């Protein structure tokens, strides 16, 4: 069964460093998302991406964040200068689209900023 994959599973970085989180969505899906879950809190939407551009973003998704689909398979989230409060689980999701677009989630990347 096709699934969304994410790498790495755990990333530790120093404050101020750049990190890139990687996702491989399900191959025929067209819409891609990043969500974040700070420990003990709810899952929050960051950004959605379609047709090689951002289609929607939340207020969390500030200038420190960027997304890219560099090739036909990967979907990346870059944080330019990490802050302590960026420590969280980051989930990638994808969907085929259409009226009912069930989102399939990856296993998440745990980002720890020291």
């Amino acid at each position, binding site marked *: 069964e096709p699934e969304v994959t994410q790498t790495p599973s755990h990333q530790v970085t120093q404050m101020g460093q750049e990190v890139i989180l990687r996702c491989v969505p399900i191959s025929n899906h067209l*819409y891609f*998302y990043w*969500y974040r879950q700070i420990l003990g*809190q*709810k*899952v*929050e*939407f960051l950004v*959605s*991406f*379609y047709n090689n551009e951002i*289609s*929607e973003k*939340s207020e969390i998704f500030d200038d420190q964040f960027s997304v890219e689909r560099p090739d036909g398979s990967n979907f990346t989230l870059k944080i330019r200068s990490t802050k302590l409060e960026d420590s969280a*689980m980051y*989930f990638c*999701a994808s969907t085929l*689209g259409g*009226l*009912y*677009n*069930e*989102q*399939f*989630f*990856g*296993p*998440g990347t*745990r980002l720890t900023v020291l």
Partner: protein
Amino acid sequence: AQTVTQSQPEMSVQEAETVTLSCTYDTSENNYYLFWYKQPPSRQMILVIRQEAYKQQNATENRFSVNFQKAAKSFSLKISDSQLGDTAMYFCAFMNPYSGNTPLVFGKGTRLSVIA
């Protein structure tokens, strides 16, 4: 903006018993989708069940069923014959399907422990 509220941070249930997790939401939309996602300790978010707001019939998936009360904006999840593998965080989520690449709006989750 839509909001989703899960008022039970933690619940426990004996194996083989039935448990109901509560969820309420707020929206001005008439058509939307509601979901329950399960997040076991492995952290993978797994879709448990979904409900289309235009359908009056409550969704059912094996041991999982929902009680969807549109007027009350309530969407509870019932787990029958609870199993140890049901131990997880459960998130209620809302989606407006008419807004392009619609993001999910999640509640804060309910941590369910199934006790042997």
